């Protein structure tokens, strides 16, 4: 199945392909957000990331569905 991953600026530097902001990804049905992070080979602990699926706060073990939009973010450094 296909989902869209949105990588926010800092994370774009942590993928094997380098700067990529938005990726269409094919993953196995039943995959979770954590599986997607592993699939993307992001070199950061999944636990460090802020997550959203289709614009809503989501946990690492949320099961993804076809055409989901997944935002993977690191927190901002000020504020």
């Amino acid at each position, binding site marked *: 199945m296909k989902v869209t991953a949105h990588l*926010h*600026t800092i994370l774009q530097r942590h993928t094997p392909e380098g700067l990529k902001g938005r990726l269409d990804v094919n993953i196995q049905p039943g995959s979770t957000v954590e599986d997607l992070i592993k699939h993307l080979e992001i070199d950061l602990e999944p*636990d460090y990331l802020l997550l*959203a699926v289709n614009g809503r*706060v989501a946990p690492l073990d949320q099961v993804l569905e076809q055409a989901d939009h997944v*935002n993977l973010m690191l927190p*901002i*450094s*000020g504020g």
Partner: protein
Amino acid sequence: MPNGYHGKILHVNLNNLSIEVETPSEAFYRTYMGGSALGLYYLLKNTPPNADPLGPENTLVLALSIVTGAPFSGQSRLTSVAKSPLTGAIGDSQAGGFFPAELKFAGYDAIVIHGQASEPVYLWINNGEAELRPANHLWGKNTGEVDDILKEELEDKNIQVLQTGVAGENGVRFAALMNMANRANGRTGMGAVMGSKNLKAVAVRGKMRPTIADKKGLNKLARWGADEFPESDVYGLGLYGTAEVLKYQNKAGGLPTNNWDSGAFENWEPIDGVTMANTILKERDTCYACTVRCKRVVEITEGPIKVQPRYGGPEYETLSTFGSYCGVDDLAAISYANQLCNMFGMDTISCGATIAWAMDCFEQELISTEDTDGIELRYGNTEAMLEMVEKIVHREGFGNILAEGSAQAAEIIGRGTEDLVVAVKKMELPAHMPQVKRSLSLIYAVNPFGADHQSHEHDPSYKDYPERMAQIGLTDPQPNKVLNEEKVKFALTTQYMYSAMDSINVCQFVFGPAWQLFDSSQLVDAVRLVTGWDVTIDEILQNGQRRLNLMRAFNAREGIGREADKLPKKLYKALVGGKSDGIVLEEDELETAKDNYYRLAGWDVDSGIPTRGTLEKLELGWVADLLET
């Protein structure tokens, strides 16, 4: 006819209840732009040195900017400036909400408040007409009640109200100004200044929208922001609020815990932004015309602690100061402390941090139940914390001492409690630790109004956002835990940028030199499109430099210079636990950085005071004259 602003400053003299309108030139507006720089101009002109911050000689300026109210994200901000009753130095604080834009629509760019009324009054501004009205019936009421009463009395539910709360009436030195009953000009005690003037509130309403020089261009910029937001680094702020950063800070060993003994809080998870989003978050709120919607609204209807949504919800700073600083892991209690601060008008940072300092004193047996009205003021004692918040508001018992802020409270108590104060220039430190982001140690020390986390960009951004940093001439990224010459340049340059943003009055989550939605060049665009002025990034940075020099000059006149630019003793003690275990700051490193910083800023290295040459370059020769009289 100016674009973006009215060219009208309202002067309110509370000594004789008179009101006048001043119409400064376009050159004046271009030089100061609004907000903090404009406020400092009036403060320096009107308040003599050594004035009592809570006396009639202090001048309180409520200032918008040349862009406030224009239709784009991040512009609805209000700056308040006065001499601070907490620090004795310059006081300066910003807030968002709907009040700032509505004040612009009511017909004014700023309100300069002089003197002191003999009886409580409030100011009502309606489509350019301003009048003072009696406010005895509002005195002693909480912020939500005052909001309701004024809307009913003025027969318009859409008016916006800025007010001082009961804490400000009682002269709590870290009292805040509140608008919407949940947005705070929190820091440096501006609510106490307004309370001392017997000015309870400012209510505004209007339809006087200034023209925009290039409306089409501005719409395009605003649309870019809305379209880009879901892909931007502030998207998480919309979902999680500022609380998104709590877990990350804790993992990095940068979450101040037990009054800064440690940078790691074992029980962080119950007070984290994700937990809040999944449990008590009722909705997300916003400021006028902003797409980000970072404000939290929480509600608790069951259990021993009830929390009302009209008082908003805790930010990261509040979760830390009432949470990890105090060893408290109860999200409901922290949310209730936040509600009390918003109901009564207090800065959540200074309030929580002052209680944490008292807990530290209690744990170390420097104070006892004899001092604390019988309360076991220990880390993690949630009930004691909440009880102390209410005592501070009403200046009851031990609360009367804590209402002075931790530094002044320590001066009253003595017994070594001074060594546990975590403040700079008597203002309590916010929840970002210089031990793990080293440029914060410099900016905390030198910042004119005390330690502040929103006065420059934090260290990780230098390497994380190289393209954006290059826009302001920063091209040599440095690691987080160094404080070398290049890091000093990074600190000062980004301080100029943040300083400008506090005069142009834009939100530092929406505009900025790093992770924000709009970058530095887009701030230039926004000012150009609204005003029609041909500004450049250099002019914007110079505006920031001007405001910083005005603040230093104000402090110099009060006898405050380099000797006050120092960190509290506790920061030179090794942290315990977590990833920052054992990290300790070096005093020599900071002193060397200060030498470099003053030199780069064009200030006298020995005194830390701006030189005449530097002030004249910034069109501030009149300030140099003031310093010499």
